[in-house]
Structure formats: C-alpha cells, structure tokens
C-alpha cells in the first residue's frame, strides 16, 4: 500500500535516533581536537629534513645541499643555499651542507617529488597537517631548524619505510667501507713502481659508491619497472661501467 | 462631501486608469490587466454602496463582489491562456499584430 515505505523509512531513522544514544558503535564522528584520529601509515604531507642525531640536528643533516629537490620542485617552494665550508657526514666523508634550507608550506603541494629525487634520503614526507598560523607569509615559511627532525621521528611516523631506508643506507655504508678497505689494501699491495696505471684503474672505483646511491633510491622508491625506474636504472649502470 | 462621494471618486479614478491602460497600451497582458483594474473599480463601488448606501438585504454588496472576483479569476485565467496561445503562434504579444483568428 502507498505509504508503507514511508513508515518503514521513518522506523529506520527512529531506530537510528534511539540507537545513537545507546550504541556508541553507530556513531562515526570523531571529535577531532580532543580525540585525534590515527592517520594511516601511508599518510604524507609536507616534507621534512632527516637528521641522524636528535641532540645535534643541524650537525647531522643528511642533506648535502645538492639542490636537486630545489630544481625539481614543481611549485618551486624549496630554497637552498650551499654552505661555503664542508663538514663530515655520517660516513665521515667531507660534504657540503645547506646553510639555508627553507620550504614555503603555503606553496608546497605535498607532491613528494623532492623525496623521490633526493639521492641521499635526506628529505622525507611528514605527517603534520595542523600548521595553521596567523601570518601567512612568515609563519608558513619553515626554515632549516623547523624542518630538521631526527631519524627516530621518521621511524615513528613511517616505520616500514624508515626501516627500509635505514637498511639500504647501512648496506651502502658497509659496501662503501669494504670498498674503501679494499682500495686501501690494494694501494698498500700495489707495487710502487707502477703508480700511474694503478691510479687510473682505481680512480673510477671510489667514484662508484658516490654514483650508486644516486640510482639506488630511485629504483627502490619507485619499484614499478614501467615508469621512470627503468630508464634511470639503465642509465646508472651504463655510467658506472 | 460624504465618504460615499470620496469612495466613488476613488473608484472612478481606478476605472479610468484601467480604461486608459486598456486603450493606450499595446501589450496584450497590460490590456488584460487594465480590464482587471476596471472590474476592481466596480467592486469598489459595490462595497462603497453596501457600506454607505441605503439599507439593502444583508451582505448583498459583499456577495456581488465575491461573484465578481470569481468571474474575474476565470477571465484572467482564460485571457492569459489565450495570450500564451497567441504568443506561440506569432512570437510576440503586441495587440496590433494579432490580426488573424486563424493560427
């Protein structure tokens, strides 16, 4: 009969009404500021700089001010100035460091391209979204000190990804150390009579660890062979060999 | 001058405004509205005489007006439907263009 559907519908909503007071499982609302939601693991928003050590964030930035991200950034929200001097990095190698590193979050669109292009795993995506400020120019421009966050924080927000990155970095470091040892041993073992050919033979080799990380992260971050990974992957070995 | 005089003068004014509109304007809708105004002027007279005129059977003037309003409503409905029909045929509603009865 006409109208029976209306009555059924009214019954459903009446049940909702009563149930909403007795059955908290019905309510999907999360009362946000008091009751923060758990963000999914893959949530990402605005980049930050990874530093190795929480006690001395500025001294242990992974960033070497190569400025790739600055050039790649589509909305051009990254500003980097290279330092004049060099500092030892985590591997003990002398590297440049960013004297100025700023991200204008009012411009940043969280596209993650800076992360994908970084050869040193120095810039990663953060999980912050409550960055509202009263000054839309100065307060939304984050400088080096505000951007630097320790690696432990990275582990906290993206545990799986961070573990993978760390594993890769330590592997690289080990390989570099072994290579360094090998070259040192080779140097020691090589006859003093023929320094020139030995130098020319060894010279490309120390360069290869520096080249390798440049390719490796790309392959790992974008594992799909179809897009972007393969041409770069091919380009890498061709250069190093 | 009694209130009745005043009422009758007002209704004369309304009637003549309606008449002028019905005769002078070339837009069919306005002509129809002018006729409506003339009808209203007549109703005004009925009420004026009911109120101030000599004693009559109770509510006579009111009943006249009620019938008049009902007929005016019918007239407006049919008139405007005719206007829409005419518009559909010749794409405008100017009175002087509606010279044919055949669509």
């Amino acid at each position, binding site marked *: 009969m006409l109208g029976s559907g209306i009555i059924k519908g009214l019954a459903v909503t009446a049940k*909702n*009404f009563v149930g909403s*007071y007795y059955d908290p499982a*019905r309510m*999907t609302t999360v009362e946000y500021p008091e009751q923060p939601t758990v963000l999914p693991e893959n949530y990402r928003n605005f980049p930050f700089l990874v530093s190795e050590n929480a006690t001395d964030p500025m001294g242990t930035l992974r960033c070497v001010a190569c400025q790739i991200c600055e050039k790649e950034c589509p909305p051009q929200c990254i500003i980097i100035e290279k330092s004049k001097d060099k500092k030892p990095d985590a591997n003990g190698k002398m590297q440049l460091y960013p004297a100025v590193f700023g991200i204008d979050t009012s411009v940043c669109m969280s596209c993650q391209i800076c992360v994908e292009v970084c050869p040193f795993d120095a810039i990663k995506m953060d999980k912050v979204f409550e960055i509202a400020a009263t000054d839309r120019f100065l307060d939304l421009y984050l400088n080096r000190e505000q951007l630097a966050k320790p690696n432990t924080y990275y582990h906290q927000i993206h545990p799986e990804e961070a573990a993978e990155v760390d594993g890769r970095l330590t592997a690289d470091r080990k390989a570099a150390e072994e290579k360094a040892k090998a070259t040192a041993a080779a140097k020691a073992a090589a006859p003093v009579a023929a320094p020139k050919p030995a130098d020319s033979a060894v010279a490309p080799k120390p360069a290869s660890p520096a080249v390798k990380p440049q390719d490796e992260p790309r392959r790992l971050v974008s594992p799909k062979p179809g897009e972007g990974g393969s041409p770069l992957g091919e380009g890498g070995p061709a250069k190093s060999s | 001058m009694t209130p009745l005089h005043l009422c009758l003068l007002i209704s004369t004014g309304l009637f003549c405004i309606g008449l002028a509109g019905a005769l002078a304007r070339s837009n069919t809708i306005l002509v129809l509205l002018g006729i409506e105004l003339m009808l209203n002027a007549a109703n005004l007279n009925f009420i004026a005489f009911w109120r101030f005129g000599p004693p009559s059977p109770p509510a006579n003037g009111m009943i006249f007006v009620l019938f008049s309003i009902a007929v005016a409503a019918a007239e407006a409905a049919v008139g405007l439907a005719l206007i829409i029909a005419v518009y559909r045929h010749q794409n405008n509603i100017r009175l002087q263009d509606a010279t044919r009865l055949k669509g």
Partner: protein
Amino acid sequence: MSPASDSYLERAPLELRDWLVQFLPEPLQWLAHHLITVVAVLAVFGTFFAFTTIAERKLLARLQNRLGPNRSGLPWIKGLKLWGLTQPFADAVKTLTKEDIVPATADKWLHFLAPVIVVAFSLMTFAVLPFGRNMIPVELNAALLYFFAAGAATELAIFMAGWSSRNKYSLLAAMRALAQLISYELPLILSVVPIVLVAGTLSTKAIVLTQGYWTSGFLPHWFVFTPWGLAGFLIFIVAALAESNRSPFDLPEAESELIAGHLTEYSGFKYALFFMAEYFGLTALSALGVTLFLGGWQAPCVFLEFIPSYLWFMLKLIGMIVFFIWVRGTLLRLRIDQLTRLAWKFLVPLALLNVGNAAFWVLSAHWAGPLQLVRWAVSFAVIVIPFVIMGRSLTAGFAPRTYRYAS
C-alpha cells in the same frame, strides 16, 4: 468551565499584560495592549525559531547517527559547551555581520523588498492563532481565510527574490517554487474545508472550542480522532510540507540542481530574513495544524488540565515540528513531475472526497447506538478505499529497486 480554566497559571500572562498596561494613560492603553501582544508573540516565536534551527540540526544528526553541533558554549567561559545550545546565537552574529552583496545587474528595489515582504507576511499569519485559552492576538470572524491570504503573499516575495536576482538559477527556482506552492495550496485549503464544515465557523478560536470535550474524561474530541479528520490531517501535513518548502518537497532549493534556489544571490541579513521566514511559515502551519486537528490548546485528558493551555499548545507545536524534522531526516527529494502529479492526481481528489465525507459526518450526527458504528465504518471506507485504489494506480509499475552489482 472547569476550575482549571481559571487557575493562576492560566491567567498569569494576561494579567501581567493588564498590569503593565494600567500604568499608561487611558488613550495609550489600547495601543500598549496590542503592542505588548505583538512583542510577546515576536519574542516567543523568535526564540522558538532560534531553537528550532538547533533542534533541527541536532535531530537530523541523530537520525543519521551523527552528533550534530555541540561546540558553541558561552563566549567568556572556556570549556563550557552547553551541548551546543547557543549555536543559533553564534549563527545570528555571523549572518548579521556578513557583508550584504547585491548583484550589479539586480533590480535593487525588488531585491531589497522581497525579504521584507516574506518576513512581514509570514509573521502576519501568527495574528489569528490561538496560543492558549483567551490568548489570541486578533479575534477574527474569518480567521482561516486571513491565514491563507497572508500565506499566499509569501509566494509573491519568492517570485520577487528569484526575478530580481538576475540569475537564471534563482529565476528557475522561483518558478518551481511558485508551481509547487500553487499546486499545494489547493489540497491545503481543501483539507481544511471539512473542519469548517463540521465546526460551522472560520474562526480559529471557535474551532478550538468545538474540540474541547472528552468522552469519559480521557478521550478528547479532537478532529484528528475522526476518520475524515485523520485523512484531512494527513493531507494537511503533506501539503504543509510542500508549502513550507521542506524535504521531501524542497525542490526550489534543490542544491544539486539550483544552487540555493531563489536565495542564491542573497547574503548576510537578507538571507537570514528568508531563512527566518521559512521557519516562521513552518511554525505557523504547524500551529494551524495543531489548532485545527489536534485540539489547539486543549489538554488531552481532563485530569491534565492543570497544565496551562499555552504549554499544551507549545507541546503540540513542538511535537509537530519534531515530526517535520523526522520526515526531513528520512525521505528523499521528489522530482518536479512527481511532485505535481502527487498534488493533482492524488491529494486533490482525496481532499475533495474528504469534504464529502465530512458532509456525511455532519448529516449523520444524530445517529446513535449501533448506527454510530455504521457511521464510523462508512466514513472510514469512503476515505480508505479510494486511498488504496489511487495509491495502487500511483505506484503502478514500481517495484523495490534491485541492485545487480552492489549487494
């Protein structure tokens, strides 16, 4: 009259008014008397409007398993939320301080006049509603006619708003609104005619008084408890939903098609006026429904008469509005052709039949004993059988929708 009708609480508002008036000189007393009534009606229903909006939002939320607004508290006390009950005042401050934007090509005068007219006329309808025993702002012989006449003028304001905005969505929505309001005015008035027929008067006060009896003390003689009254009430509710542009008949404001309908080009205070008028219209129609069908300010049982009549009226009014909100939270919007079809092919014939039904009821008033049962049975049959038959033809060819891919 029972002693309850003369209790202190019952007389309190009127005596307060008389006490206030007596301080004024004689010639001003008449004016003050009416001014106080107007101010009281405005204050009560203004507050009622404010709390209807918050009640609507909270109820709709609960009907859909949400929480609804629960944040706004008092401005100078942090942490006190008051279940969001001060939300309407926050909204009022917001709308009043907003910029008033008038489109450059708009017809300035009509654009300004439309909200004024709509509020003025929707408030005028309150003048003839009996809010309690002896509490009626204006006692008119033709009160019902007045109510519908004042209500009819709001249609004009909607047209003015739509046309003067120079916005095609506004105009389309205004035309839709007009088509809808004209279509549903007929069933609305026809559903009221049986009441006039049985009560023999157009005066709302007298109509309430005719409903003021009880069978054996607890069965009220409200019109809704007769077959024709029930049918009339249902038709009235459907028509009132459409007249006040509420879901499921909120086509003029179908935001998915027409943005905000005729309100698209309105902002700030003018928008607030339209919003207010809409709720005033809803409240007035609900109050009319209460007055005509639910016994007005009469208590449902004799022993409940100690509660003052105006409270009974308010309770019934709140009940009606809650029901309207409930319907809004449940039903989906109709299409325009379904809407007009429902009015002309279903509600109007049914309402006309109901008028005949009420005439039969009046003619058979002297039937007694077993004939009473026959009277009820015939009256029910006259309305239920056409309902079923017409409902069949209206829903012919429809079946519950089946979804092939979604479970």
